């Protein structure tokens, strides 16, 4: 549902929940996840509701994911890097 204007530019590879996804250097992790069709970045502490990136500018904190073992990272503020391991964050008491 999100299309890249220049698909050939997506030369980088990172991993979401263990599966490889393509990214363009300079993409935020959030953008790369959305382009790969991810519709769940984390689940909420109270009800386990599924959330994905909302504001893309670091205000809403709905894009929190675990990156390379560190939790509570805002995916929209983190640039992609080759080989990055991104995992969903399940906030119901599941911290770093």
């Amino acid at each position, binding site marked *: 549902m999100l299309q890249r204007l220049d698909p050939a530019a997506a030369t980088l590879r990172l991993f979401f929940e263990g599966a490889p996804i393509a990214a363009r250097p300079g993409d935020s992790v959030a953008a790369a996840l959305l382009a790969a069709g991810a519709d769940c970045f984390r689940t909420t*502490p109270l009800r386990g509701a599924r959330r994905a990136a909302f504001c893309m500018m670091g205000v809403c904190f709905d894009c929190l994911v675990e990156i390379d073992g*560190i*939790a*509570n990272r805002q995916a929209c503020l983190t640039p992609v890097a080759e080989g990055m391991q991104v995992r969903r964050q399940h*906030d*119901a008491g*599941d*911290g770093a």
Partner: protein
Amino acid sequence: MTRTADAIVVGGGLHGCSAALHLARRGRKVVVVEKNSVGRHASGVNAGGVRRLLRALPEIPLSCAAMEMWHHIGDLVGDDCGFKVSGQVAVAETAAGFEGLRARAAEVAALRYGHEELIDADELYRLLPALKPGCVGGLVSRADGFASPYHTTMAFRAAAIRAGVVVLEDTRALGFRRAGGTWSVETSAGALQAPVLVNCGGAWAARVAAALGETVPLEPIAPMMMVTAPMAHFVDPVVIGVERKLSFKQAANGTVVIGGGHRGVPDLDNDSSSVDFRKLVISATTVGTLFPVMRGAQLVRSWSGIESRLPDDIPVIGPSATQDGAFHAFGFAGHGFQLGPVVGAILAELIDTGVTNLPIGPFAITRFTPTGVAA
């Protein structure tokens, strides 16, 4: 328009609401005068520790009586106040620290109180599996716990109102006069009159006392707290440091609340306080040292509240030394929350009958001689 009552309580924190509730339950007409909103200051923002562990000796009888009330808090105010019996554990990292706990345990046992139990390393690590290795032992009070401070204060307020108490918020007491056995209190919302005045003014209580002609060396303090993002559950009891300033607990939602007594900056005139992050840096180091899993924690919020202490770090509770019909309860030095339910009962009993069967002698305001030194 002058409002009359049987008692005027200055201060709508937990102690003020508790005193008002207990007085109302004894059939008195009570008015509470609160300059901000109920629970705005210490009562609403403290760590919520419901603790007997490691209290100053004079406080122990009161604290044990209060704990009875906490274990039935629903009967008292119709709300569970978020009270959890989690236990509280003081951790001794060194042999010297442990010896101090041993002496303390003996002291308390000699007074015939059984709530503080010395534990060895095995039991310590059974209670606190996430503790760093090498600690020597601890002191535990198993039926202690924690509650939700704002909920508790509001529950006391609601119960007091149900019992007929009038709570005036955003109302400041401006002046006090006594004539013919009656107190006249000028407030920002009109005049109040009652034969009895109760000073539960928190950090501002010295100002009230001064108006009654009593000088107390009350020092405002602003204890700071911080709280983390939710973490996987790793600790049940509330943890207190012995060699280090630390107190922390993990709430049901996984967040960890860290205190321990580091202080920010109070501003009594503006009803505000500010956080000194330099000291929070120290807390961060301390908690990460004792509990390595906390190194991965994320701090999401800090805050401070306004409390007050007297030089001996125990409160003033009891009648005024200079005025008839006036009573004090203030200066809880950051550990007044657990005592809230019982101090109100003590004041009500004093006011109603002239005596109380709980030993409040050590808390007399008269221990502060004119030079400000404890007698």
